[in-house]
């Protein structure tokens, strides 16, 4: 796909692409800063279209229904507030240690960065090739991700233990956080699906999952916010979910 892909971006933001076209655009976007910039411009138009519908005063019953419902449905607890309960002195010491270690490891990090960039480019290429290959399987399935401003595609073949996810629009993370994917089986067990990798500007992420079982053994995919390095089981807030 060359830069004429830019012309498909208008259809992409409107949701007008068929799943395979969408997947191709996302695979291209993950490595093309020019198209990522063009996409941001079209996203502006889409936001404008959201606001272009005439406001209409809703019936009063909605407000009263909601007011009644609030008591039954709890707002999700905040992981940030949990962090605030850590004693300030302990937090300061931990932060100080991290800063000290970071300074001493600076040189090592610089040399490792080049290696990581190479590995990241290779992983991205592999994910793209796998996604396109999967999409060409007759029994492949594509689950669209559109949730709270996050957009993406999850492509998998139920009879294979491999899947690829592209995702766009996740909130930017600090260095001590990661997005971790989980495969959920019929018993509700969560299996680590890996950490989402991001491009240079952290706008576009991808993940290739190699699961121990066939994808048909899983009923859903979820993504949570976790501490750097990931967690053995979900601990942070749910960011998005896809039914398979």
């Amino acid at each position, binding site marked *: 796909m060359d830069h004429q892909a830019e*012309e498909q971006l*208008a*259809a992409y933001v*409107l*949701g*007008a*692409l*068929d799943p395979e*076209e969408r997947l191709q655009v996302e695979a291209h976007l993950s490595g093309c800063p020019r198209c990522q910039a063009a996409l941001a*411009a*079209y996203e*502006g*138009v*889409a*936001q*404008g*279209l*959201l*606001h*272009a*519908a*005439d*406001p*209409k*005063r*809703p*019936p009063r*019953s*909605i*407000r009263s*229904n*909601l*007011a009644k*419902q*609030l008591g039954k*449905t*709890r*707002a*999700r*607890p*905040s*992981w*940030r*507030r949990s962090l605030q309960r850590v004693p300030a002195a302990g937090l300061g010491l931990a932060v100080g240690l991290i800063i000290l270690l970071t300074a001493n490891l600076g040189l090592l990090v610089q040399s490792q960065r080049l290696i990581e960039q190479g590995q990241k480019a290779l992983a991205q290429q592999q994910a793209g090739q796998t996604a396109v290959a999967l999409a060409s399987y007759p029994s492949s399935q594509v689950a669209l991700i*559109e*949730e*709270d*401003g996050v957009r993406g595609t999850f492509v998998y073949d139920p009879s294979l233990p491999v899947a690829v996810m592209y995702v766009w*629009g996740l*909130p*930017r993370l600090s260095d001590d956080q990661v997005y971790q994917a989980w495969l959920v089986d019929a018993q509700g067990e969560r299996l680590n699906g890996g950490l989402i990798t991001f491009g240079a500007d952290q706008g576009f992420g991808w993940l290739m999952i190699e699961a121990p079982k066939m994808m048909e053994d899983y009923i859903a995919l979820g993504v949570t916010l976790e501490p750097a390095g990931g967690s053995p089981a979900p601990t942070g*807030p749910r*960011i998005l979910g896809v039914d398979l």
Partner: protein
Amino acid sequence: MNNIDLAEDAVLMRKVAGGDRRAFLSLYDKYAARVYGLALRVLGDRMTAEEIAQDAFVRMWTRAETFDPKRGRLSSWLLTITRRLALDRIRFESRRPPTSNYSNPGEAPEYVPDPASETEEARWATLKFALNTLPEEQRLVIELAFYHGMSHSQIAEYQATPLGTVKTRLRLGMKKLRLEWDQGEKSN
């Protein structure tokens, strides 16, 4: 909407995430007309639009923690949720696009106090005007895609029009809207 309003929304959303019902109802009063208006625009019938508007605000209550003010304004976040829920309903019920158009340019708009600033409102109005003044065939494909969740190929089938023609109309129409939108940004 000025920066003070945006900051106020962020503060209220933090309170909502902490379970503050008054903060929630305050945001409801501010954005309910936009949410309901969009749901009505997508679905075309009042009863389902009411359900969707209510669901969108329930999501705002249960997922307030995931709102990040650095990524955009609350109205966009809330309207994105509304559109998503409405399109899911359309797909679930295999609905056809509504025959009544609640955004008909010929219809006198109902006056509803709007939380947006004059500048922001002007920009949205400009885009809406640009949409309504597009050649009809371009406007229709954009509306069918965005407000009714139809893909290129579904629009081609629905309109009995060649797929290539649908793609061209959508691309040309969106190019014009992007120009209008970009000009609005420069003039602000």
